[in-house]
């Protein structure tokens, strides 16, 4: 620890500089509760069952770190009895970049580009979650137009993520990349829009505390409208190709079932949780941003297997298109950033804040403690990929190695976020 935490001193300092008013420290504000539903009691995680007497000898295989289907440098130490998995131990950290410590060494603004690199498929969602945390910390208000832009970019990101995920999942099943290439064709169009807006295709670095960096370029909304209007056609195409495919059904039905109790207890979020039938979507729960203005539904699975997780992605893409159409219709004119925010010398008041959004992979949260200086005192991320990965062994045990690959594929991880 570099220096002792002295809230009082820091708070006084912040108030003396006149940056914020004290009542904006709203970290004690009530958070909305999860919707009513079955109450899930915390049960201790079952100990790994004893390995049964094997047919032959147990075979220990190290899947990764340079295995083609671990989605990056990730390793699974798998113990196989024949082809059946009796034990699976995920090993990660190959891509560890000291992200959280880096965040504590840079200014609040300087940390924004780093968040792009977390889940590099969804940089705009990361930006938003971080901006939300800082805004909560400093009590900033976001202009209306900026909120709309945020929703549009975040939902476009969701489209990018989900369509690519379906492609990758099918690639793991051995389709030689055909669905992946179809997904990438759509992704390219969206990335073109991102490039027009932010100047970068993947590392967008666009959202700011109190709004967005720049206003939309002329014609951008029309460009996005075209993409969004054509997107359902792509989803239909994908579904015609895949959803009824005998082989896909055979491979995914009943594979990697995640029971709802386990999902809740392990803190799984996002499509994986909803595939297990639990109605928990932060867009509905927190209603952060302006999500309460849009009409959309949250799809829920019934079995919690890989097929449900696949279908969640497809159905969520359809809902995202609905949100996008509404947002594109309603977006007002106006400023895109609160002119009072001093981004360069940004100094939030002493306090702590946790900002979370429904990222495409699940609940992405940023937790910040400010000691009133220009750098966060503590900077912590709740990465959805990492936490969703913790149930990997429970889902894989008893299945074959080939199933483990698609179960991992359906969890949807990006190693940049898992290892940080």
């Amino acid at each position, binding site marked *: 620890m570099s220096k002792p935490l002295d809230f009082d001193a820091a708070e006084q300092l912040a108030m003396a500089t006149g940056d914020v008013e004290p009542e904006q420290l709203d970290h004690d504000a009530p958070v909305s509760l999860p919707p009513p539903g079955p109450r899930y009691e915390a049960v201790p995680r079952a100990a790994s069952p004893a390995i049964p007497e094997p047919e032959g000898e147990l075979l220990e*295989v190290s899947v990764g770190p340079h295995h083609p289907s671990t989605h990056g440098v990730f390793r699974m130490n798998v113990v196989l009895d024949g082809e059946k998995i009796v034990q699976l131990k995920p090993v990660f950290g190959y891509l560890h970049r000291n992200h959280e410590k880096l965040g504590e060494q840079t200014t609040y603004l300087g940390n924004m580009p780093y968040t792009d690199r977390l889940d590099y498929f969804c940089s705009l969602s990361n930006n938003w979650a971080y901006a939300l945390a800082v805004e909560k910390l400093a009590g900033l208000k976001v202009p209306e137009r900026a909120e709309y832009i945020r929703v549009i970019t975040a939902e476009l990101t969701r489209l990018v993520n989900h369509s690519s995920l379906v492609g990758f999942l099918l690639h793991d099943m051995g389709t030689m990349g055909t669905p992946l290439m179809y997904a990438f064709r759509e992704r390219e169009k969206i990335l073109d829009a991102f490039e027009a807006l932010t100047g970068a295709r993947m590392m967008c670095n666009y959202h700011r505390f109190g709004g967005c960096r720049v206003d939309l370029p002329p014609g951008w909304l029309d460009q996005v409208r075209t993409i969004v209007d054509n997107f359902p056609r792509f989803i239909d195409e994908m579904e015609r190709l895949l959803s009824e*495919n005998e082989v896909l059904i055979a491979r995914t039905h009943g594979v990697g079932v995640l029971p709802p109790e386990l999902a809740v207890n392990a803190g799984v979020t996002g499509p994986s949780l909803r595939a297990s039938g639990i109605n928990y979507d932060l867009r509905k729960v927190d209603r952060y941003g302006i999500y309460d203005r849009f009409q959309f539904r949250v*799809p829920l*699975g019934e079995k919690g297997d890989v097929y449900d997780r696949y279908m969640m992605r497809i159905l969520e893409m359809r809902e995202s298109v609905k949100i996008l159409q509404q947002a594109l219709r309603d977006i007002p004119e106006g400023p895109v950033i609160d002119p009072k925010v001093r981004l360069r010398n940004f100094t939030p008041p002493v306090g702590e804040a946790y900002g979370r959004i429904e990222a495409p992979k699940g609940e992405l949260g940023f937790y910040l403690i400010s000691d009133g200086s220009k750098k966060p005192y503590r900077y912590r991320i709740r990465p959805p990929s990492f936490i969703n990965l913790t149930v990997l062994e429970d889902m894989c045990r008893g299945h074959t190695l080939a199933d483990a690959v698609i179960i991992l594929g359906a969890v949807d991880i990006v190693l940049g976020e898992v290892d940080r």
Partner: protein
Amino acid sequence: MNALDQLFVNLKQAIVGWFPGEWRLGVSVVISAAAIVGVYAGLFAITTWIERKGLGRIQNRPGPNRVGPFGLLQPLADGLKALIKEDIIPQRADRLVHTLAPILAVVPVILALAVIPVGRNMVAVDLQAGLIFFFAMGGVKEIAVFMAGWGSRNAYSLLGSMRAIAQMISYEMPLVLSGLVVAMAVGSLSLVDIIEAQAGYYGGVLARWHVFTPWGLAGFLLFLVAATAEANRTPFDLPEGESEIIAGHMLEYSGFKYALFFLGEYMGLFGMSGLAITLFLGGWRAPFSFLEWIPSWMWFFGKLFAFIAFFVWLRGTLPRLRADQLMEFAWKFMLPMVLLDVVALALWQYTAHWSVPLAGLWRWVLSGGLMFVAYLGLARLISPRRRVGPRTYRFAE
């Protein structure tokens, strides 16, 4: 026309004729062997290009387009790369077994290709038991796969080779049996005789291929599925399932040895396609009587390219099955279907001399109906949908 048809036969005879009497047999053998190796190796090069281009078209991308016009010289570049790449033998590998495996993967396949007639009078070896010989050589390939997997001393390799062998053994049964159905119908195991039996035309137009009979159609489809599995093509490409066991038994190979495995794989594919053509699609015969002017070898290779295109299409479209589903499919669907196909053939032959009105139609109904009903029943039995049923999704507002 006839000169073009017999061009290669006459050419070979002319060359053989230059040599003194006692040399002629040897020269003839050498020419045939060189022709088989050369033609099929050339076909291998073209096929890799077709495959990559075709997959590219299916996936909205251009495919190879840098080396030569339309990327046509890509196989050459690939071959050169394979030749000059370092040949790595893992330290703990069994050197002899590891080195012999790729050779053994290619040799039996070439031997098997020798019995397939590629045109009128164009067959390297006309064995009496050509069909059985072909299947026997397919069996030798399994040893090569085992040697590659075991000799590399790698868990993935071993796993992959065991998978591959289990798959090949399981699908050998329906493959051999569906081939033997044709042998039963023809009454000969010689591939030349089998093509001979498909001479003539229905109504003077449509060729009398076996595929145009109910048992032949069923046999052809079953053979095609089994051949896909035997040649390790999608959706049965588990032995080299890239996303699961990387390259299976070929994992520890590099450079030219790896290329040899691929040569073996593709030649196996040509062999399987060639056999399917010979057994069910009339070999080198034209489909319609008015197309007879096209040389016979062109017909054979035309059909072969059609098969290659079909396999490329499959590869670009279908996901891969899982090992246990693959086995289930082989034993619960393929095997009973093939056995029933024997019955269908018996019905067809038994009713050959019926003298009831509409006898032809009745034969079709009997023989084809049997296969169709069996298909419906068995397909329902193994369909994954029977087990899971349709899914409905709830939506929370």
